[in-house]
């Protein structure tokens, strides 16, 4: 027999000015099953809460309706008060008399009547509430970091330094990512390698970090705290334990004409290679696609020269299965290349390069050891044009977003050029200069004022070659849209940052949503920028959208904290407002008929299959089962289920039905 207590709050005069609170309490008090009904000036105050706690004990209440403000405001407050009064907190409901009644209506009888209706519907609802216990989910305290760029490195180190195990997976042969390709970094112009390589080494040596390079994610199953991840370790074709990384094989490999990925195609590498001298791990891999042995069946020069006999041509890929508690996705970004731009010659002009290629040219470890030389003939360009927003902010090219980093690195490029080629002329075409960030605008001003970089506000319509020079045709919108023509030796396009290749496939494996540009989607653009909509999977860095290094590192640390917080307890506690598929004894087991249409509506992949079997293992029936760890309680499956076999705690069919009836009928 239900014994409901109703507590009507005046909220000072916020409610009582238009609603006759006394009358509400009195009318509701006459309802069947209402054991106690009262009104009070400030229900949320300490004495107010005491009234509730005392009444729970005194009247042996089985449910409480606090008729006050919005539950979005004070539901946690009153649920806590009920718990302190000895009542299960989920047996407390709120009737919203302030935001939805007293504040939006005039003072009259109708308003008070509406208030009574609202309270009554909550009384009817709370009668059907069940005492719920928070859900406990065990947590495996090992994190997986996907991608070994600066974002992944930062996250992995932060998590590992909190004392948790980390597995890092990187698909290329070395960690380091794009940052390892950069020459110098804005706005301080410190050498990228100098600040990055110590961290790469730290990752390799950290006792809590297991590093798998040349490896990819095969599949991900499970849920927060309990992921089961399969990793494919691609065959490096050598025994890493024996290999000393002497590099002799890489110098003797007869195949030397493979475009070097690390040098953005501006240099060549052999088929057995270490991507760059500071690579971590500093061990070569054989690129089977280009290796003569794998193509023609003979060669094996590397095997012959290897002093430790570490080459293993028949090494297979290896699949590892790991138990993981949380995942940080830090797969980074790619950039569009010059061939994306019809108006700039579809990539046919050698001296039109992209920003990353310029980084390699400017890098002391690059193909020109830091000299700015144009690719076509190795001459020092006397006149260089930088084009910002190449592809970005251009809906016609399908990329409406700002790539964020280009304004800054273009200023840096122009500056680096001027520092190296003093007599040279640098021009920058830009749409707007977006230099928000600590010391960023000062940096751009320095390029313009101290290094005399010629900034032209306008777009470049076309570039073509004539007599070995690049004719850059653009417009200067600050000079009344005057056409500008620059005869350049080299052009650098600050091309749009795009999602890393394979991002879509990975997102699908992780069941994480992504936007139309294949960037991973955050759970909330402002308040949950690090979380994804799949609990336990977090984002770091440019896999979410193009970001500079400081932003990437900050977010990576943010993601690490989320993981550390999750790992701070051995069990995870969740609100029990989740869906459940009913169960009964044999032979029914459940009224669920196993059509699994609910599976496709669930945004969280929370619906699993459960088989009921005979003793000899024959399947009698397969029905749906909600994974409480994943369910977020939206209830879309509940409304879809034809046989009404799924119900949602806190918003059960019975409860909402009772609410509708109670709102419309006086008793």
């Amino acid at each position, binding site marked *: 027999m239900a014994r409901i207590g109703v507590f009507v709050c005046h909220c000072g005069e916020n409610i009582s000015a238009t609603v006759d609170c006394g009358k509400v309490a009195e009318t509701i008090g006459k309802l069947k099953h209402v054991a106690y009904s009262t009104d009070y000036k400030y229900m949320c105050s300490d004495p107010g809460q005491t009234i509730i706690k005392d009444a729970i004990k005194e009247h042996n209440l089985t449910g409480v309706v606090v008729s006050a403000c919005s539950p979005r405001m004070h539901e946690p407050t009153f649920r806590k008060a009920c718990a302190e009064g000895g009542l299960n907190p989920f047996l407390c409901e709120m009737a919203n008399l302030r935001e939805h009644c007293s504040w939006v209506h005039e003072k009259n009888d109708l308003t008070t009547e509406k208030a009574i209706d609202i309270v009554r519907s909550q009384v009817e609802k709370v009668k059907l509430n069940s005492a719920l216990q928070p859900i406990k989910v065990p947590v495996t305290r090992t994190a997986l970091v996907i991608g070994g760029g600066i974002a992944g490195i930062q996250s992995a180190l932060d998590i590992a330094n909190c004392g948790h195990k980390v597995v890092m997976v990187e698909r290329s042969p070395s960690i380091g990512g794009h940052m390892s390709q950069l020459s110098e970094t804005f706005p301080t112009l410190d050498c990228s390698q100098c600040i990055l390589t110590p961290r790469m080494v730290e990752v390799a040596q950290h006792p809590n970090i297991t590093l798998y390079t040349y490896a990819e994610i095969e599949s991900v199953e499970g849920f927060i705290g309990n992921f089961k991840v399969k990793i494919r370790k691609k065959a490096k074709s050598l025994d890493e334990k024996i290999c000393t990384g002497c590099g002799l094989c890489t110098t003797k490999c007869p195949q030397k004409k493979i475009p070097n990925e690390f040098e953005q195609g501006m240099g060549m590498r052999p088929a057995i290679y270490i991507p760059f001298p500071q690579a971590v791990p500093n061990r070569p891999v054989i690129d089977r696609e280009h290796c003569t042995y794998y193509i023609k069946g003979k060669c094996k020069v590397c095997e012959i020269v290897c002093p430790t006999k570490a080459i293993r041509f028949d090494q297979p890929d290896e699949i590892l299965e790991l138990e993981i508690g949380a995942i940080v996705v830090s797969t980074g970004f790619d950039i569009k290349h010059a061939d994306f731009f*019809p108006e700039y010659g*579809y990539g*046919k002009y050698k001296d039109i390069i992209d920003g990353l290629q310029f980084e390699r040219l400017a890098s002391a470890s690059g193909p020109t050891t830091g000299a700015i030389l144009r690719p076509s003939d190795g001459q020092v360009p006397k006149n260089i044009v930088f084009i910002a927003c190449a592809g970005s902010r251009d809906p016609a090219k399908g990329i409406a977003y700002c790539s964020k980093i280009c304004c800054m690195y273009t200023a840096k490029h122009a500056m680096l050029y001027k520092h190296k080629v003093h007599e040279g002329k640098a021009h920058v075409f830009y749409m707007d200069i977006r230099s928000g960030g600590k010391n960023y605008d000062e940096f751009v001003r320095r390029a313009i004022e101290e290094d005399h970089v010629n900034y032209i506000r306008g777009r470049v319509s*076309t570039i*073509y*070659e*004539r007599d070995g020079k690049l*004719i850059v045709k653009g417009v200067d919108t600050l000079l009344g849209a005057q056409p500008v023509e620059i005869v350049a030796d080299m052009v650098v396009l600050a091309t749009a940052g795009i999602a890393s290749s394979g991002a879509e496939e990975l997102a699908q494996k992780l069941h994480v949503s992504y936007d139309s540009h294949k960037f991973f989607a955050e759970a909330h653009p402002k308040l949950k920028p690090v979380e994804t909509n799949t609990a336990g999977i977090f984002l770091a860095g440019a896999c979410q959208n193009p970001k500079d290094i400081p932003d990437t590192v900050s977010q990576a640390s943010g993601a690490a904290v989320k993981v550390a917080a999750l790992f701070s307890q051995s069990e995870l506690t969740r609100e029990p407002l989740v869906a459940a598929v009913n169960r009964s004894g044999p032979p029914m087991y459940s009224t669920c008929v196993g059509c699994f249409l609910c599976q496709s509506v669930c945004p969280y992949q929370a619906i699993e299959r459960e088989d009921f079997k005979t003793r000899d293992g024959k399947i009698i029936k397969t029905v749906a089962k909600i994974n409480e760890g994943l369910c977020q309680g939206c209830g879309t499956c509940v409304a879809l289920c034809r046989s009404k076999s799924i119900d949602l705690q806190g918003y059960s069919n019975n409860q909402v039905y009772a609410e509708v009836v109670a709102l419309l009928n006086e008793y």
Partner: protein
Amino acid sequence: MKFGIYPGCSLTGSARDYNESVFALAEAFGLEFTQVPDWNCCGATAAHNLNKELSLALPARILALAEKNGLEEIIVPCAACYSRLVVTRHELKKDPELKNRISEVIEMDYRGTSKILNVIEWIDKYITPKLDEKLVKPFNYKVACYYGCLLVRPNKVLGYDRAEDPQTMDIVMRKIGAETIDYPSKTECCGAGLSISRTDIVSKLSGKIIEDAEHRGADAIIVACPMCHSNLDMRRPDINKYWKTDFKIPVLFVTQAIGLAIGLSPEKVGLKRHFVEVKIS
């Protein structure tokens, strides 16, 4: 298969050379045309500046006539006519209500079933496959392929070739033995219809196109549009006067070049009608 041809005004007037070369090619390859009966003006550049419905009704009538006469494909050698016909088909396809209105205006049922081919599409489909066997006199010249504006733009509507640095004509020319140069002026404006009213502007713009071709060592400019041809060829004296130059580079229709390569006589493909002399070695 019954082909239609829509000659438009220029092929029967100022671009008879073009017309002759198209028919000469067709004859050489055993292809027959039926002229769209009772055809009218495509509206060209004038109509769509004045009245949108008129600019759609004129080409729609041509297309409806083609459909009515069972012409599944019509070749439209003039790039301007081609553009108007394709744009009309596009506009009427996306707006059924407009289509009905236009059908009422032209008092004919327009369905949009006839396929519209520009001259290069036609060559690609019917000439190229048999070109090798007929090639007797490879066109051993360095050529600048000039596409002009209407053959490839608006790219979203035409969906033909690349908007910047188109390639289809280059590919055809290479097939008959020509060397095509990297030519950034391919789609620059020739001045088009300003030919009559502002010859000075045409002289300036077309002059740049010619200069670029000569500068890059081309022996000839190849075109597929009668307007481009008349501006680059007929206006040559004005151009040379404007720029104080003496450009001598000839301008050939792509059909003329192919005709020569398969051994047709210069007269047969209308070369004698040009203003700038075409010297054949």
